C-alpha cells in the first residue's frame, strides 16, 4: 500500500476522516447535511449486495471508521442508478460520493481483489490506449485479471454470448476501434493525473 494521505483517526469519533472526505471527495461538501433518514438505502436496488448501505456508511464516515468505510462493499456494488441522488431530501449527491470513495479506496490499495476495481483497470486501459472502449478487449483483460486458469474458465463460460454477439454483427473480429487523436488524449489524461497528484501533495 502506498503512503496514505488520508488521516487515520487516533480515537473513536475523531472527525479527521470525515473532514477529509468533506473536502476531498466529489460531492463530499454536502455530506455533512445528511440527516440519516435512510431514503438512499431504501431506494437502492442492490442493497442486498451491500454490507452497510449509504445511510450507515455516511454515519461510519462521521464516526471515523476509515478502514471499514474504504473496505465496504457498499462503495463497490453501487450500480449508479441515481435513485438515491434524485430522492435525497437534503440533496446529498450519494452516488457521486460513493464513486469518489471507490476511487480513493482503489488508489490507496484497499481493493486489489474487488471485481469493480479489476474491471475499471481493464476498462481504463482500453480508454487510455485507444481512446475508446473496446468491449472485447475490456472483458478479456478483466477475465484474465483473475489469472490464466480462471481467465480461460470465465472466457469459455461467456463464449456463447460472444458468439451470438458476433453473429448479430455487434462484436467485430478486427482490430480495436480507436480514436485517431488517442495520443493527444493520453497527453490530456497524463496532465489530469499530474494536476490531481499536485493537488493531493499540496492539500
Amino acid at each position, binding site marked *: 500500500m502506498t503512503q496514505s494521505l488520508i488521516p487515520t483517526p487516533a480515537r473513536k469519533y475523531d472527525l479527521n476522516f470525515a473532514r477529509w472526505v468533506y473536502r476531498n471527495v*466529489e460531492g463530499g461538501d454536502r455530506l455533512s447535511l445528511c440527516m440519516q433518514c435512510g431514503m438512499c438505502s431504501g431506494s437502492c*436496488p*442492490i442493497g442486498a*449486495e451491500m454490507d452497510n448501505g449509504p445511510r450507515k456508511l455516511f454515519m461510519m464516515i462521521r464516526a471515523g471508521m476509515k478502514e471499514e468505510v474504504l473496505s465496504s462493499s457498499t462503495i463497490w*456494488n*453501487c*450500480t*449508479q*442508478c*441515481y*435513485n438515491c*441522488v*434524485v430522492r435525497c431530501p437534503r440533496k446529498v449527491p450519494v452516488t457521486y460520493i460513493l*464513486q*469518489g470513495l*471507490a*476511487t480513493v479506496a482503489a488508489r490507496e490499495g484497499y481493493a486489489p481483489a474487488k*471485481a*469493480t*476495481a*479489476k*474491471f*475499471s*483497470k481493464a*476498462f*481504463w486501459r*482500453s*480508454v487510455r490506449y485507444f*481512446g*475508446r*472502449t*473496446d*468491449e472485447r478487449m475490456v472483458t478479456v483483460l*478483466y477475465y484474465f485479471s483473475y489469472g490464466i486458469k480462471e481467465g480461460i474458465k470465465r472466457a469459455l463460460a461467456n463464449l*456463447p*454470448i460472444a458468439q*451470438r*454477439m458476433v*453473429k*448479430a*454483427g*455487434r*462484436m*467485430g473480429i478486427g482490430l480495436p*476501434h480507436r*480514436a*485517431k*487523436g*488517442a495520443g*493527444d*488524449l493520453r*497527453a*490530456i*489524461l*497524463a*496532465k*489530469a*493525473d499530474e*494536476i*490531481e497528484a499536485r493537488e493531493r501533495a499540496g492539500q
Partner: protein
Amino acid sequence: MSKIKFTYYPGCSSQGAGIHLDRSLHAISGKLDFEFETIKDWNCCGASVGHVKGGQLPSMALSGRNLALARQQGTADVVTPCAACYLNTHFVNERIKNDEKARGRVNEALDAGGLSYQGDLKVRHVCEVLVNDVGIDAIKDQVTNPLSGLKVAGYVGCQTVRPFAQTAPGGEFTTYDQPKFLDQFAEACGAEPVPYDKARTACCGGSVSIYSPEKTLHLMRLILQEAKDAKADVISTPCPLCQQNVEMYQDAINKEFGDSFNIPVVFYSQLMAVAFGMDGKKDAALDCNMIKPDKLIEKVK
C-alpha cells in the same frame, strides 16, 4: 424542409453492442426534422466505471475533450443517444459552465492536447430532442406502416432520466419515476403500450451486470417479469447497456430461477424505422437483435 442540426456523440457502444441504436437513429433522421454531424474523433466518456481507476479529473477530461472538439465544429447542441454518455457529458458540461475551478482544472488538462472549452454548448439526450424539438406529432406524420396490435413495454432504465431528467432547453421532458416518452413513441408508431409502472425506471444492474452478473440477475428478472405479465411482445428501451443486459442474460436468468423468458428487447428507434416503412435490416437493424423480435419482423414492409 430545413433540418435542425445537432452535433452527435455516438459513444463507444455505437461501434459494438449498441450498433443497432446508431444505425436505426441515422435511418429515422432521414425522415424526421433533424440531422447529425458526428463529433470528429470523439473518445469514450468513461461510462460508469472509468473513475475508479482513472480518477475524477481524468474522467472529466474525457468529456472535456469531446466537448472541445464539438465546439470546434460549431455551436449546435450536442446530442447523444446513450444513457451513460449523456450523464457524463452533461455533468461535465454543467461543471465547466458553472464552476470556475472545475473549468480551470479541465482546461489545464485539455491544454496538453492543444484544446480548450468554456462551457457554452448544451448537452441533450436524443429522446428529449425527439419529444421537444421534433415532436410526437411529427413522428406520427411519418408512420406509413402502423405497428397495430404490437404490445410494447417501455423500459426507460436509469441514467437517461436520472439524475438529469429536466434539461433545458425544452423544459421538462419527463419525470424521474414515470416518464411517458417511450409510451408516446410506441403510440405514435401505432403500437400498443402495455402497463409497465413497476419496472419502467428500474435498474438492470448497469456495468455491475457485466462484471458480476450473479449480483444483478434478480434485477433484470423483475424487468422481464413485468413485461411478461403484461403480455408484451417486445421491450423497448433507449439505453444501449439496458438493451444488452436485459437481452443477453435471459438464458442465465432462466437457468438460475427456472424461468422461461424469451422476450425481444429493441430500441424505440427500431420501432420507428419499421413504422416509417423502412428496411428491416439496413434501417431498423433488426438482424442485430440476439432474440429475434418476430412480431415486429412480421410487420416489416
